């Protein structure tokens, strides 16, 4: 009997899963012809290629410790701001039936509220060309509402800005169900060394069959500047393999008369691997008159 029991214990230990760790990331690289105000060149671009670890560990009933360590690396030349790897979203948190509380470096709630509608995210046509508020803040304490809230996700982040001593905050409220996504977000004093900064953002998208339509509006103000802008995007999943997408945005938040237009298509080999082609035009009344035409490939793992 003792031998049998011992065997079961050994069997149990032998097959015990390792600590819950998921390695994830993506490699996204493109070859593009860039025409930046008449200066033409061929560029190999790494588009926010990254690698990360995430997971959870149950420490009691309905209590999870969650974590994420994510780093960006440049596939094109191995140089990301002078380093091989740079820090992206990194946090440690605790999750209960009442929500999640986490601390670390993390995209602000206002930034993540628009992740669904930016179809050329991390590319030349990224929404950051026209909108402010695409911030990944350091020293963040963030609360996220629990899963039991169903289609509603509320977030509130407090940023202890240790550089300028002006603490900031960011909040969002999102509804996501049956193809409809709506979000409202606001933040204050998130940007470094800028006083009186406030950003408001409204986001919406609707997916009907193979078509997704999205839009966003933003208002931004600070001590010396203010502006607003809008953004619209459309995606058509022509087949399981082929995707057509386009987006346009216009604002005077960053520069007077800034416009960004992108059009492109994806071919999906499977859910993890795609190749894509794109054209992006970024222009404004003052400094930019840029065109980009490129082809690339992405693997998610």
């Amino acid at each position: 009997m003792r031998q049998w029991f011992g065997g079961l214990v050994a069997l149990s230990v032998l097959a015990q899963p390792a600590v819950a760790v998921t390695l994830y990331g993506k490699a996204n690289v493109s070859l593009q012809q860039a025409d930046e105000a008449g200066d033409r060149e061929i560029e190999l671009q790494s588009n926010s290629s990254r690698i990360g670890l995430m997971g959870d560990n149950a420490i009691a009933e309905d209590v999870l410790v969650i974590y994420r360590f994510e780093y960006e690396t440049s596939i094109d030349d191995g140089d990301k701001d002078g380093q091989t790897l740079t820090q992206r979203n990194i946090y440690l948190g605790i999750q209960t039936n009442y929500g999640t509380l986490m601390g670390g470096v993390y995209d602000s709630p206002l930034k993540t509220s628009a992740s669904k509608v930016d179809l050329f995210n991390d590319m030349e046509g990224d929404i950051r060309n026209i909108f402010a508020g695409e911030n990944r803040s350091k020293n963040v304490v963030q609360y996220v509402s629990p899963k039991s809230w169903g289609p509603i996700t509320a977030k509130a982040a407090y940023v202890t800005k240790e550089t300028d001593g002006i603490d900031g905050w960011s909040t969002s409220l999102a509804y996501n169900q049956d193809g409809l996504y709506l979000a409202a977000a606001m933040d204050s004093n998130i940007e470094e060394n800028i006083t009186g900064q406030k950003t408001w953002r409204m986001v919406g998208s609707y997916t009907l069959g193979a078509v997704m339509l999205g839009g966003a509006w933003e208002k931004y103000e600070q001590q010396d500047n203010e502006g607003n802008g809008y953004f619209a995007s459309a995606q058509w999943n022509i087949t399981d393999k082929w995707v057509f997408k386009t987006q346009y945005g216009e604002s005077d938040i960053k520069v007077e008369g800034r416009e960004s237009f992108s059009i492109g298509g994806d071919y999906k080999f499977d859910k993890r691997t795609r190749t894509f082609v794109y054209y992006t035009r970024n222009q404004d009344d003052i400094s930019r008159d840029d065109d980009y035409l490129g082809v690339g490939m992405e693997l998610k793992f």
Partner: protein
Amino acid sequence: MRLSKFRGLGLIAVYGLFVSAFAIGGECEPAVDMIDSNDAVNRIADCDYRDEGLNGWLANLGSGKDEPKPKSSVTKQENAAIPTSRSTAEGFVLRTQPAADALSLLQQRFGVIQQAAERCAPGVAEVSRQAYQMDERGNTTLLLEFYCHS
């Protein structure tokens, strides 16, 4: 970074060959998409990526396999049979995902037995021992030890 057109296209082609080694299908969205979603922290526990993509390839290194086995992923709630395995000196152990009900556990048992039979083919898989384990959420995991016989 400036490159000649041909050199750049060559790099893209080499990259494509590399990435195709890890491309597999499944039902859960890729982990990098899930973790970037607005409600990511509430979805971390939804999908099990332990046997997916690069994670599957790394896990299989421990069992002496070189390639990840293509397999659809399922959510933890579905509790379908996604056994994780580790070879012993004489046999090998397969385990189910934690199951919340008897039907799920039985279905997963069938999946585990199928995988063991496939591994031992053309021989037979003999169940030498079995054990049950309950986690802190009250879900039950089945562990089976197999031996292959010709």
